[in-house]
């Protein structure tokens, strides 16, 4: 009978907490959105599945050896760990209270060497870091995975339209207003006492408005790792929703006549220009904004591999097999951050709300900038392409093209919109660099 009780007490059902159950449902919801609604399935399938794995009770796939020992070890081990952390446990309290106080100690201002000693005890009695925890540490904790993805994006990007009409870079810059307006919005919410975000967290939330998955993950892993799960989910979900979010804003801010504007055809761009561009961008980054160097450096490297034409194998690997491998690991790592205690908070709702505002403001700023440029410049600019300034390559450009075709069925804006689109990628990487410089 005792053995049966032990078996029951070791089962998932017995140990399932409400939070974990809810998070497993959230993971299933993400899978549903990815599989049936085709929301960025390449990312949301691994993220959703990782989220389910991370919340399996007792398995502790997403937590460190130390946390795992605190959660499930025997009282004797707990006492040893408390001694290592330089504290004593109240002998009158029960083991559950000990676990809680140990958890508090382990996450609040303990000297690194004490933490290491406690960890050694946990490892010594046979606990090890969870699989997803290791994935996270290697892929995101080190910053490698988002950067490799960025290299792949660079290898997939054709800067031709941008080089043919460099002024579209301004549209990419204007759309970054979404990032900073959202940052300010988060700060205002905090000062009004509605939410509680630090400036670092506000910045990490704002970057959702850059509509750039790897950049969002990179920035939040540096500035606010505790919010990474919610931010990554919001960023990828809203990127999938670009075709729904953008058109109403674009129609609201433009007149029918403006939407019909035809743009002059782009000049052909020579191969030499395409080869020189990533190098030039790299030099500018090196000279003026070294903090954007990790993101833009990898981006330029990928693009140079594509354009130089002598390393086709490397370029092919960067934009296909490598980016796929890294996407799997990145998705699972992000999923490991979908834990009940950090995700099921009021702040997550705030992040989801602010994220969609960020997209809206970015789109509006791009469109308004395009209208302004149209007043100043001689060459006609269709304001719709301004909306493509939020990165989300190539979705945003396709949306601009589609809305343009609705106004005039013979007006193809796709190539014109690719310019601001890739400019948006550069712009959001620059914005990320500024924020990391200012707050990092």
């Amino acid at each position, binding site marked *: 009978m005792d053995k049966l009780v032990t078996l029951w007490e070791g089962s998932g059902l017995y140990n399932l907490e409400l939070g974990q159950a809810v998070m497993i449902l959230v993971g299933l919801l993400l899978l549903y959105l990815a599989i049936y609604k085709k929301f960025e399935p390449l990312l949301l399938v691994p993220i959703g599945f990782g989220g389910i794995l991370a919340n399996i009770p007792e398995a502790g796939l997403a937590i460190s050896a130390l946390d795992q020992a605190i959660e499930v070890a025997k009282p004797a081990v707990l006492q040893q760990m408390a001694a290592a952390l330089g504290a004593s446990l109240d002998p009158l309290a029960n083991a559950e209270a000990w676990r809680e106080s140990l958890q508090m100690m382990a996450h609040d201002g303990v000297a690194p060497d004490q933490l290491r000693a406690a960890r050694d005890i946990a490892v010594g009695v046979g606990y090890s870091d969870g699989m997803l925890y290791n994935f996270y540490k290697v892929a995101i904790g080190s910053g490698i995975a988002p950067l490799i993805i960025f290299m792949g994006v660079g290898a997939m990007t054709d800067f031709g339209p*941008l*080089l043919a009409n*460099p*002024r579209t*870079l*301004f549209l*990419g*810059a204007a759309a*970054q*207003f979404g*990032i*900073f*307006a959202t*940052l*300010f919005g*988060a*700060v*205002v919410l*905090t*000062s009004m006492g509605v939410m509680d975000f630090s*400036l670092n967290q*506000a*910045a990490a939330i704002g970057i959702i408005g850059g509509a750039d998955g790897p950049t969002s993950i990179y920035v939040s892993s540096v500035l606010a790792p505790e919010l990474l799960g919610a931010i990554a989910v919001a960023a990828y979900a809203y990127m999938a929703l670009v075709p729904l979010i953008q058109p109403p804003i674009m129609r609201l801010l433009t007149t029918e006549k403006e939407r019909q504007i035809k743009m002059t055809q782009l000049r052909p761009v*020579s191969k*030499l*220009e395409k080869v*020189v*561009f990533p190098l*030039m*961008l790299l030099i*500018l980054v090196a000279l*003026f*904004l070294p903090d954007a160097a990790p993101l833009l450096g990898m981006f330029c490297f990928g693009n140079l591999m594509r354009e130089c034409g002598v390393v086709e194998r490397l370029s092919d690997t960067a934009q296909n097999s490598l980016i796929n491998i890294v996407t799997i690991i990145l998705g699972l790592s992000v999923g490991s951050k979908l834990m009940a205690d950090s995700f099921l908070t009021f702040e997550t709702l705030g992040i989801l709300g602010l994220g969609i505002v960020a997209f809206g403001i970015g789109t509006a700023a791009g469109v308004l900038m395009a209208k302004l440029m149209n007043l100043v410049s001689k060459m006609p600019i269709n304001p719709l392409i301004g909306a493509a300034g939020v990165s989300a390559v190539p979705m945003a450009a396709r949306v601009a093209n589609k809305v343009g075709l609705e106004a005039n069925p013979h007006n193809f804006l796709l190539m014109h919109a690719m310019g601001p689109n890739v*400019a948006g990628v*550069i*712009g959001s990487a*620059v*914005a990320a660099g*500024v*924020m990391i410089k*200012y*707050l990092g």
Partner: protein
Amino acid sequence: MQNQELLQDGLALMALGMGVVFVFLTLLVISVTLMSKLIGRFQPVPVPVEAGRKSPPPPAASTEKDEIMAVISAAVHRYRSTRRR
């Protein structure tokens, strides 16, 4: 009081960030335009290359002739074969 500070920090970061993004991308616009002009000026380089390719006309002409010969002989062949029937 602390909130006031946070607000100010947020505002400062917003202004600084937008400023840097715009300045950097303006620099990029200027340098891209310059680069394109420079490369455009050196565009004469590929033109002589093309001229160089054209410079040995005899082989090109001979391939042209070969082609014409081939076409003519094919036509003759077909003409004859239809005549025979």
